[in-house]
């Protein structure tokens, strides 16, 4: 059973009532928050706003602010989506959460840091030469991340094929812990700053009000996603992946090399995480050994929101999660009178995960899991 859903016809127990209450409460809070937000957009001095803000008027959100939030949410969401693809694919094929997938992303971001500082020393991280250089950097980050994912599979997960479900999960926690701390010890514990982006990347596109770098992130993510879609749906290897995800045994009877297909899955997922890593670096210009942890968990949430095993769902889940993370603090929590709502951004994501699992455990777009995993 996937989630907290009662079997039809079973009597309601205390737990069921509690869960029902929780669902109603969470959805109610969202509705009230949204209504309060709309009300304070129309009239910042309405009674509810005054009540929640200790008698003071609430502040209105202006259109450029709102647009800024949406673009931030989209670009972050695109990265979550890219990482989520890896979770989703691995879950689809092997049926376990690769907890260490966030670290693959971090390794990508770190590789990007090392390369970009070296290129910056050479004076290549600027002007028009930046374009071939960044393409090369993306390529290398992708390769390093892919290698990390493949080695991970070979060393830690392959020997555990067929063991109880929780064992590879615990192993992946260990892998994540190991990689994180290895990076801290190898490269030092502090945050690493990327060199400043070329000026044209920081500019805002006049008509749209979007920064070029955020647009770049969204475009690169879209291209990678399209490439992945083509790979999975239109190539022979992709077909093999889908077959293995559906049923490993039958797939191997059909002459598909299951081990090789699993490695391919890890490699492709790693590549996507690597791309997300370098994009993260360009967007936030800083990377630290723990960078992979929260985005990793959020990406997993995105995968669940979109429906595990469903690639389009993962991307859509990522984008909606990024949007929710950017918008919810100001559109839900602030109207409800929460102080410092941006501090609770991560809490919003986790609450969303719980809510989705409570209300629609198969995700917005439906799970695609193999027969044994659906059980």
């Amino acid at each position, binding site marked *: 059973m996937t989630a907290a859903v009662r079997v039809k016809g079973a009597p309601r127990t205390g737990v069921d009532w509690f869960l029902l209450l929780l669902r109603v409460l969470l959805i109610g809070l969202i509705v009230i928050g949204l209504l309060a937000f709309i009300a304070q957009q129309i009239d910042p001095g309405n009674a509810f706003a005054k009540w929640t803000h200790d008698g003071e008027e609430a502040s209105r959100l202006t259109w450029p602010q709102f647009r800024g939030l949406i673009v931030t949410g989209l670009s972050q969401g695109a990265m979550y989506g890219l990482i989520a693809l890896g979770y989703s694919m691995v879950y689809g094929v092997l049926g376990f959460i690769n907890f260490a997938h966030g670290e693959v992303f971090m390794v990508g971001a770190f590789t990007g840091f090392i390369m970009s500082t070296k290129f910056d020393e050479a004076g290549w991280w600027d002007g028009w030469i930046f374009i071939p250089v960044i393409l090369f950097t993306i390529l290398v980050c992708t390769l390093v991340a892919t290698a990390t994912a493949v080695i991970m599979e070979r060393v830690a997960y392959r020997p555990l094929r067929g063991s109880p479900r929780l064992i590879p999960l615990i192993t992946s926690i260990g892998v994540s812990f190991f990689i994180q701390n290895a990076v801290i010890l190898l490269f030092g514990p502090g945050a690493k700053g990327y060199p400043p982006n070329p000026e044209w990347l920081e500019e805002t596109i006049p008509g749209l009000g979007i920064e070029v770098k955020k647009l770049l992130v969204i475009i690169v993510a879209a291209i990678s996603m399209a490439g992945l879609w083509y790979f999975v749906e239109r190539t022979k290897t992709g077909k093999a992946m889908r077959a293995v995800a559906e049923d490993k045994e039958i797939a191997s009877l059909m002459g598909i090399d299951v081990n090789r297909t699993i490695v391919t899955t890890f490699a492709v997922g790693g590549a996507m995480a690597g791309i997300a890593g370098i994009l993260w670096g360009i967007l936030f210009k800083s990377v630290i050994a723990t960078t992979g942890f929260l985005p990793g*968990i959020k990406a997993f949430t995105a995968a669940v929101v979109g429906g595990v095993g469903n690639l389009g769902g993962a991307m859509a889940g990522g984008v909606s999660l990024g949007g929710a993370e950017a918008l919810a603090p100001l559109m839900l929590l602030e109207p409800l009178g929460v102080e410092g709502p941006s501090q609770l951004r991560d809490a919003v994501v*986790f609450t969303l995960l719980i809510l989705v699992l*409570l209300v629609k455990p198969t995700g917005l777009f439906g799970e695609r899991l193999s027969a044994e995993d659906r059980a």
Partner: protein
Amino acid sequence: MSDITADVAMTELADGLSEATEVVKGAFEIDRSKAVRFGGLLALALVFISLVGMPVGMDGRQILYWINPDVYVNHPDGQGLSLGYVALFLWPLLLGWAVGSEVVLEGMAATKRGAHDLVTGLVVGVIGGLGVSVLTMLLAWDREINPENGVPAYGMRDPLVNWNEDLYILLTFNRGWTFALWAWPLLAGLLAMFGAGLRLMSDPIRKAIVAALLAIVAVSIFQFLVDDLLGGLGETIADPGRLSNFFGDDPDAGRPNVDSVFDGLLDFVYAKTGGLRLQGVIFVGVVAAGLSLLGSYVTRGRVKAARQAYLDRPVAERTTSSAIGMVVIALALIILPFFTGKIVNELLANVGIFLLLALGLNIVVGLAGILDLGYVAFFAVGGYTTAVLTSAGRGESWPSWVPLFVTDDGEAVVGGWIIALVLVMIFAALTGLLIGAPVIRMRGDYLAIVTLGFGEIIRLLFLSDWLKGYFGGAQGITNIEGADFGFLGTVTGVNPRSVFYLVLFFSAIAIYVSWRLERSRLGRAWMAIREDESVAEAMGINTVNMKLMAFVVGAVLASFSGAIFSAKVGSIFPTSFLILVSIIILVVVIVGGMGNIMGVIAGSLVLIGVLGGPKQPGLLQEFSEYKLLIYGALLIWMMLKRPEGLVPNARRSRELHQEEFLQDAWLKGEVDTGDDEGEEGDAVATEVAPA
């Protein structure tokens, strides 16, 4: 006559020669790909360890106080073999040993051991050593001496923090890189050969050698502990009158300074600047080896027989004797803090706090099979609730009806902590229900992530400005009063011995509760759920309620730990409750042995005591920088090689190795699996698995 003898001699010689050539030939018939694979692994491991900074970081600790003054980095005046070098030398030994391992299946002849093992070890070591040589070469190539001040600089120092002169000096033995070029392959080769050679020895001799090596390293790195224990004990023996001060805070108070009777021995073994003297090495090695040999020859088989005899006795008798054993252990633990110094007591108190957490998680993960990654949330709830009830420095937003067990002059109310603890328990149980209910029906892996999310949510709430009026945000809650038990004394962090007793008391409760629960109806229900939830449900177990119970019991145990923690530290911050804590407790439970109380105790002692907790230092201060890396590596290694833990729970390990048991049973002809009905075989396996 003499011709015949000559003939015989000739034939014998020829035979001998051909035998010798056979041996030589056989020596080179090695599994090349395996040797190369292990060699590559060794090279990678050595390079990784070097770059991670372990050798340089641990170079400060001397193992052998010895000869050569110009080699050592952090001790220009220092002499001998440092822990840093041991961290490198260990791996050729281990991998040399490991390369000879093979899976022995019943019915297959094991490969003959011989010279080829040694050669394989040598090859592995040389390849590994070459890895270090290459690293040294790269370092030398990257090394540029600044002409102005003569300080060497490294280009790759920028991303790699340990790519520096210290590493260069250490890896080259301060003799230049050309020396390292041939010294490392030679050294690693010999060490690996020695490791492989251990397999050729007879059991008792191998055990003696390993015991001697381990004893030397242990006596050396635990010098501080040995000093502390033997020093304290020796002083007491020299001046038994000190015992009268035992219940005071300071055993030294009002007594003349005496020399410990063990001072002579300690001076003989240890050097003044730390590390063993050469005579100490020989002494410790000989004693350990001797004891091991004695053990092998005198008690051979007897221990096993005694154990079997014990197990064969009726249950009632066993219960009595184990009860007596428990009392003895308890008495020993009560007396222990009097012989140890403040630092060791502090260490034991930390171990106890994590032991409580681990025992709680053991119920959730080990018995009920629920992987709760947000376990730290209950620890936090315990800590914060105690803080709110016993600190005058709690947030101002609390209404006055929320009790505060502090008198007006800012003293703790006698017994207030106990009343607070009751409230803490209630809150923790409620949190357990609140977190447990939504996740209880989720698939195991979803549950793990969602509980992790809950753990983060709770921490973020404690941290947030929104609830700052209650929990103090990032500034936390300070001025938490200790637990005042009236005439029994007050437990505060200043007096680690008192914390130790408090922890000991609660650990004893926790151990008793876990032990009883394991054998109760509830415990059996948990184990059934762990094995197969659907089957458990079909057997009439109310899985939802049972799993909620596991959450609640685990939460209450963790909240005890949180309450003691806040009384001990005296202040509480959200940074004490990172996910890291959950994961470290998980490692403790898994390394110790899921579902086994003894295992959990052993795990906390070894990991928290020796390596240290998330922020608490352990016995090995040198490892504190690397402990998280070691925790991660341990977790992976345990899962791959020994998922049942160091001290396995018999039933749990049977479950994990079901297939192997089935195979063994099949080989012995005990099961008729019905030829090709493999699935049925699985079901039978549990029945035939030896109890």
